[in-house]
């Protein structure tokens, strides 16, 4: 049974705590939407959940290699075609997903170099990658940026299907997605302003 838990989680950006005291407990089929103003720490929290940086305090419990992270950047190589881009990530993650292009309405663009995609099409390609990772927990950073209304609807449908199959999603979004989801307002967890900590990398080098 997939479960994502975080206890008394604090995350830091550039050595400064931005959020503290976050408690998460998501089970299969549940989604969580992160809200908060710019700079509230949504991206930092998602990167910490994805395992790209260690938490400043607290713990995150999730099965190993279970989280797929989709950042602001789409990780799309402009000189590769749409199909080549996707095939690469499918091979790296060892996932299945021959219908991923069709589900994001990209099938007719499969042979086009990614350099000639529009911003919205590129984003859809970045989201199609989630389907080929085959991972149950999705950490999504503003997934709907530059998508048109039809694409947002299509993506919401994909999210529902993912949750229906026992997946979990943590989404940072300003847009109201039509999803049954809990909402976490990060404003309430803003870290108390304290003395500036030394950047952790320096501590690592000298302590």
């Amino acid at each position: 049974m997939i479960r994502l838990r975080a206890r008394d989680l604090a995350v830091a950006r550039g050595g400064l705590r931005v959020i503290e005291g976050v408690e998460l407990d998501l089970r299969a089929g549940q989604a969580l939407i992160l809200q908060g103003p710019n700079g509230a720490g949504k991206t930092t929290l998602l990167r910490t959940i994805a395992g790209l940086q260690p938490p400043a305090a607290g713990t995150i419990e999730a099965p190993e290699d279970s989280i797929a992270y989709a950042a602001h950047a789409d990780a799309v190589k402009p000189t590769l075609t749409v199909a080549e881009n996707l095939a690469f990530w499918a091979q790296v993650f060892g996932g299945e997903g021959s219908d991923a292009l069709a589900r994001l309405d990209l099938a007719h663009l499969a042979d086009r170099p990614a350099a000639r995609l529009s911003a919205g099409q590129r984003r859809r390609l970045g989201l199609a990658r989630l389907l080929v990772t085959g991972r149950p927990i999705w950490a999504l950073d503003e997934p709907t940026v530059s998508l048109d209304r039809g694409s947002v609807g299509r993506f919401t449908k994909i999210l529902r299907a993912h949750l229906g199959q026992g997946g979990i999603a943590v989404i940072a979004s300003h847009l109201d997605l039509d999803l049954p989801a809990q909402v976490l307002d990060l404003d309430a967890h803003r870290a108390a302003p304290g003395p500036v900590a030394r950047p952790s990398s320096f501590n690592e080098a000298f302590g």
Partner: protein
Amino acid sequence: MRALLLRDLRLAMRAGGGFGLGLCFFLILTVLVPFGIGPDRAGLAPVAPGILWVGALLACLLSLDRIFALDHEDGSLDLLATSPLPLEGVVAIKALAHWLTTGLPLVIAAPVFGLLLQLPLAAMPWLVLSLLLGTPALSVLGAFGAALTVGLRRGGLLMSALVLPLYIPTLIFGAEITRRGAEGAPVAAPIALIAGITLAAAALIPFAAAAALRINLR
């Protein structure tokens, strides 16, 4: 792993990928040097091994910052770091791809460049051998420098400053093999040393570079 290697090679071959960049630089250098020093054999032949090796080293340096910087900019590196591939393996594969697109063409084309610099024919096999043994170390050590400076804008200068000292042993022994080969002197010692440097770098550097990447991704 194989998918990553194939992707990197494909990216290098496609437009703007930088394949042949090092080769062109090497060609320009070897064409210009005779103009600067004078084309006669007596002047060129003694300095040819050194110039060829310095040229190979700089040609390699030219494309180093591409190893991780592009993947970092477009977010691919974040995904590779969270993928099932070990980051150490990613580093090793990317260094290998760099060598295949930069080092290997230099090894193959080196005899032609040697001719341009009046390198004695007897030294050609030794030049090729020394480059074959030495250039992988350049790519692997370079991957370390690229990993250290991956998050920095215009980190190329800092990277050169970090990497060049690490290149010096390879340069010394590589040029020494070619020089001794030209004179017909025994070459076993520098060959053993340069092979040792390459093997040690290939075995140890991926771990150091992966650690540097992890810190830089935070």
